[in-house]
């Protein structure tokens, strides 16, 4: 292991970044690649967000006002795909690139050239995906879950482009996953045993295994679609002896672990941030690690809870119900541990902590609705209504997205060497908090009252809550421009950040200066 580090040291340690565009195009430095991932992710967040604004504008009132149903469906589909694959996942890969080497005392990621590839595939993939909006017949319009045969026999011509875009995203994710695993398993500083790793590193290690396990399944299912569309097979075409339900099984075998791919790194980040601002060690480190492991394993045997209404045999129904309920136990353990970490700490509420505390509260609310959805008989009433929309936005927006914001504020001083503007950041937090709850809480009521999801127009009794929800969504959307401003301002200047700007923070990343130099840990630190 040390041999690897030595060669790296002599080759690279003494020159800085290349000049101009070459620095980014040929980047192999984990910090540069991390930055590119984060910038890309935020761009996609704004793009996917503007599609959400279109959706919420159309739903502001009953009746069709702004867009036609066909385009509405393209918007919901593209919004979902862009947010999942373009915003949330790349943001976490960006954080992983920046922070994992710093946290484990490694000089860089283990496979820097592959790292470059896995990033640069993404802009190409999304250019391909977004270009479908301008094609004849329009963009994919079958939902981010692209159920066959709506997406095969009945799909628009652009479906083929969508399939290739998904393939590219998958390849990028798999390469990213391999890189994370190789880095964590091989490049830890001497003395950094597995059970001493920061939780962010642990959650990413497990996430990377999930990625490698399920992205090929996604690739498989879109390839089967491709065959059905162009090569005369009938995997999902009942008319040819195929099975539309098979599609859903394969998709959700990918899809459920995927939702944990989007949340586990946030669990990790929050587990760094809560102790730092509670000035108290994380409660139950070991049980946190085991809980993440348990969640990851269980996530492979709950997929059909998305399919309670497809008419599975009752035995299957029961199996998936029990397993899904079971997954709430380790999830609960994590929440209890975070609260116990705060309990009798010495708390302060800087922006990262605000986002992290909101994460715990609101993610738990999403967990509660998840538990309700897990009760199969009740899911017959909830399924495919706005109740589900409320559920997954509660786990994804204040879960994944707030986790990312918390991380960004927590580590911005390390990345830029400047403190961000705390007042603006708190404003960003409160406006996001209010906007997001206003947008998504009423959706619980809408769903329970009977509003199906993915509809461009609705019955009159849903009007009030939809209007409230749209106003909340506009507030949330507009607030994110403030975040852009805060980050740009922080990159440009501001109060100089010390190596360790948070007095309660622990970990190797705080032992290097701020901003972190281009090359760090050329000689591995000693961990006691």
């Amino acid at each position: 292991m040390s041999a690897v580090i030595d060669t790296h040291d002599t080759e690279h340690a003494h020159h800085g970044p290349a000049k101009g565009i070459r620095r980014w195009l040929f980047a192999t430095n984990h910090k540069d690649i991390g930055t590119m991932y984060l910038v890309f992710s935020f761009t996609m967040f704004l793009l996917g967000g503007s599609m959400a604004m279109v959706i919420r504008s159309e739903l502001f009132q009953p009746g069709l006002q702004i867009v036609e149903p066909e385009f509405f469906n393209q918007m919901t589909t593209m919004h979902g795909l862009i947010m999942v694959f373009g915003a949330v996942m790349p943001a976490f890969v960006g954080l992983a690139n920046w922070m994992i080497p710093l946290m484990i005392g490694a000089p860089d990621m283990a496979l820097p050239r592959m790292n470059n590839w896995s990033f640069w595939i993404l802009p190409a993939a999304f250019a391909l995906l977004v270009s479908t909006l301008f094609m004849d017949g329009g963009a994919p319009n079958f939902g981010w879950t692209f159920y066959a045969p709506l997406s095969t026999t009945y799909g628009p011509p652009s479906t083929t482009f969508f399939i290739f875009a998904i393939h590219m995203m998958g390849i990028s994710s798999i390469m990213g996953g391999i890189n994370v695993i190789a880095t964590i398993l091989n490049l830890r500083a001497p003395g950094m045993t597995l059970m001493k790793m920061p939780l962010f590193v642990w959650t990413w290690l497990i996430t990377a295994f999930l990625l490698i396990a399920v992205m090929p399944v996604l690739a498989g299912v879109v390839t089967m679609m491709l065959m059905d569309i162009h090569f005369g097979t009938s995997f999902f075409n009942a008319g040819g002896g195929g099975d539309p339900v098979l599609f859903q099984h394969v998709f959700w075998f990918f899809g459920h672990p995927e939702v944990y791919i989007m949340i586990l790194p946030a669990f990790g980040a929050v587990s760094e941030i809560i102790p730092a601002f509670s000035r108290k060690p994380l409660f139950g480190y070991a049980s946190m690690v085991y809980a993440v492991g348990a969640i990851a394993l269980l996530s492979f045997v709950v997929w059909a809870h998305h399919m309670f209404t497809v008419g599975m045999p009752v035995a299957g129904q029961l199996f998936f119900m029990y397993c899904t309920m079971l997954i709430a136990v380790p999830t609960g353990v994590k929440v209890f541990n975070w609260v116990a970490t705060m309990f009798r700490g010495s708390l302060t509420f800087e922006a990262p902590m605000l986002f992290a505390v909101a994460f715990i509260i609101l993610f738990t609310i999403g967990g509660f609705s998840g538990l309700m959805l897990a009760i199969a008989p009740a899911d017959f009433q909830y399924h495919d209504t706005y109740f589900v929309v409320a559920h997954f936005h509660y786990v994804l927006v204040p879960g994944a997205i707030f986790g990312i914001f918390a991380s960004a504020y927590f580590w911005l001083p390390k990345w830029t060497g400047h403190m961000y503007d705390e007042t603006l950041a708190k404003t960003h937090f409160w406006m996001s908090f209010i906007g997001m709850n206003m947008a998504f809480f009423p959706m619980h009521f809408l769903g329970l009252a009977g509003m199906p999801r993915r509809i461009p127009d609705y019955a009159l009794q849903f009007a009030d809550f939809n209007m409230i929800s749209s106003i909340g969504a506009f507030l949330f959307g507009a607030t994110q421009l403030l975040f852009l401003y805060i980050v740009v301002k922080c990159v440009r200047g501001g109060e100089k950040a010390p190596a360790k700007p948070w007095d309660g923070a622990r970990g190797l990343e705080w032992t290097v200066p701020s901003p972190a130099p281009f090359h760090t840990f050329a000689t591995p630190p000693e961990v006691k």
Partner: protein
Amino acid sequence: MRMTALRVGTLLAGLPVCQSVFADWTVNMTPGVTSVSRDIYGLHMTIFWVCVVIGIVVFGVMFWSIFAHRRSKGYKPANFHEHTWVEILWTIIPFLILVVMAIPATATLLRMYDTKEADIDVKITGYQWKWHYDFLNEKFGYFSNLATPQEEIHNLANKNEHYLLQVDEPLVLPVGKKIRFLVTSSDVIHSWWVPALGVKKDAIPGYINETWAKIDEPGIYRGQCTELCGTNHGFMPIVVKAVPEDEYQGWVQDQVAQAEKLRELTSKDWTKDELIARGEKAYNTTCAACHQPDGSGAPPTFPALKGSPVATGPMEKHLHTVVFGVQGTAMQAFGKQLSEVDLAAIITYERNAWGNNTGDMVTPKQVLDFKQSQQ
């Protein structure tokens, strides 16, 4: 607006009217009108209160810390970071709660799956974008289409009370009988959901899913398709009209008689004007959603019929297009969905409306012959 003012007023009036406020805003699941829907409602409320109690405990501790254990209040941090017993307890207690929840959930699920010994069988078929109901025992069936006028959807007219939740022909069912639904689809996946019946079942091509309901009270129960099924997914509502047994029997007899009448209509001698008049109506319910009331379509997905080569060209091709649809496009095969009378009327209408003055007509009898010749 008036409703909103009313609601705010009621809210201000305070707790005593709380119930009615909730009823009006419908913030909760309906208990429904079947034993299954009431069981589901019970499960829903139980798990909801379980979550509320857990939430109060967890957030209670958290808010206490946020309030009391602040550095700004000079609170010094403790240094504990594990406690085996507490950790075991908060793993086991939630587990036990879940086991207790799983028992009634399992019982309800088993009941929902028990479709044996039904009194009536209704086959439900999803189409883009309407439902078809087949009464298997009495051998008649019909389509149920959205009845909300396009003007209301496009904000050219005031929206009525049942906006988007109204159909031309509701599904009529008797109360107090066990009805088995056999749910399937002719194109993409749909899902048949009526909240008050506690029934939601996916309609999947190639599958026949079974579910059932025994309705306790007469009434009108509304629902919608809940699986994204294409452009007009939001526009294929479901209306169930539950009536007392004798009223139901009367309705069934009417339907059987009507089916008989339709057979007579097919053999009747039609004039062109009669066909055009009937065709205009049928066109507007069945075809206008895509091809537009004025025949202008929405190219390229939905071609215009006004002046189109099919609607003004050879009759054979026109018949074939309407009866068998066009593979790989949104144009469905209407041959099975519409009666011969309506097919003949629509085709005659299309060949003579909007300046397509071909002067042609086709009779129901000729449509029937065409269908048979193609088999």
